[in-house]
């Protein structure tokens, strides 16, 4: 298990997700957009704290797999 927070800082993550957040904000009323943005960022930070990924394959494992397929 790999906790994401060891690899990405909260600020970087939010910066990466900016375009997606902007897009989702458009689907609600203009007067509710600020509220929704805060809600989303809160959820992202919560997720960052707890989410762990299953094993991630290494570069050379993928390389091996690719070679086998050929």
């Amino acid at each position, binding site marked *: 298990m790999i906790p*994401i927070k060891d690899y990405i800082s909260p600020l970087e*993550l939010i910066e990466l*997700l900016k375009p997606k957040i902007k897009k989702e904000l458009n689907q609600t009323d203009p007067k509710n957009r600020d509220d929704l943005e805060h809600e*989303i960022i809160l959820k992202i930070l919560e997720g960052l704290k707890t*989410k762990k990924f299953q094993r*991630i394959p290494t570069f*050379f494992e993928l390389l091996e797999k690719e070679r086998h397929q050929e």
Partner: protein
Amino acid sequence: MVDTQFKNPLLKAFLDELEHLELYQQYCKSPNEWLKKLIDERFMQFYIRIRAISYFSKIIYFTARHFDMERRKYEKRYVLTLDGSSSDGNGSKKEGTSTLKELIVDESATVHFPDKLNDELNQYIQHPLLYKAVQSLNKRQQQILFLAYVLNISDTEISKKLNVTQQAISKSKNNALAKVRRLINA
């Protein structure tokens, strides 16, 4: 040259970055543990970002849906809230629509909006010909036109205000309009 044409989209994207490609080429020329570890580490950094973006994109999507659902539930339960749109439903997503709270009467106001209106009909006319025509009407006709077209009051209400019958108002209004029309066309 080292073969870097991979089918796997992940490997391809990873090696699209020049820094990664150089590391990999270096490794192919002289494989050693230290380089291998470095590449693995870089790949992890790279891959975990992709995974994180896809994971959090879903979270953002569902948070937005959930937020709207809650908002609608709230609006349905608390119908008396003044933040709602004053025009029922249609166009509520447009920007700049007024909300109910903007229509509340200011109890402490000393001057009411109708009082602010100028009660001279000719103050509202821009066209010089029309202005001249209206000037030639008598005071009473001007007053009736003012009530009917500036304040938007019905004939019946005007008649109550001036203590005459509705028919009389209607008649003098039509006379006034006919006279104005004649003077403009002349």
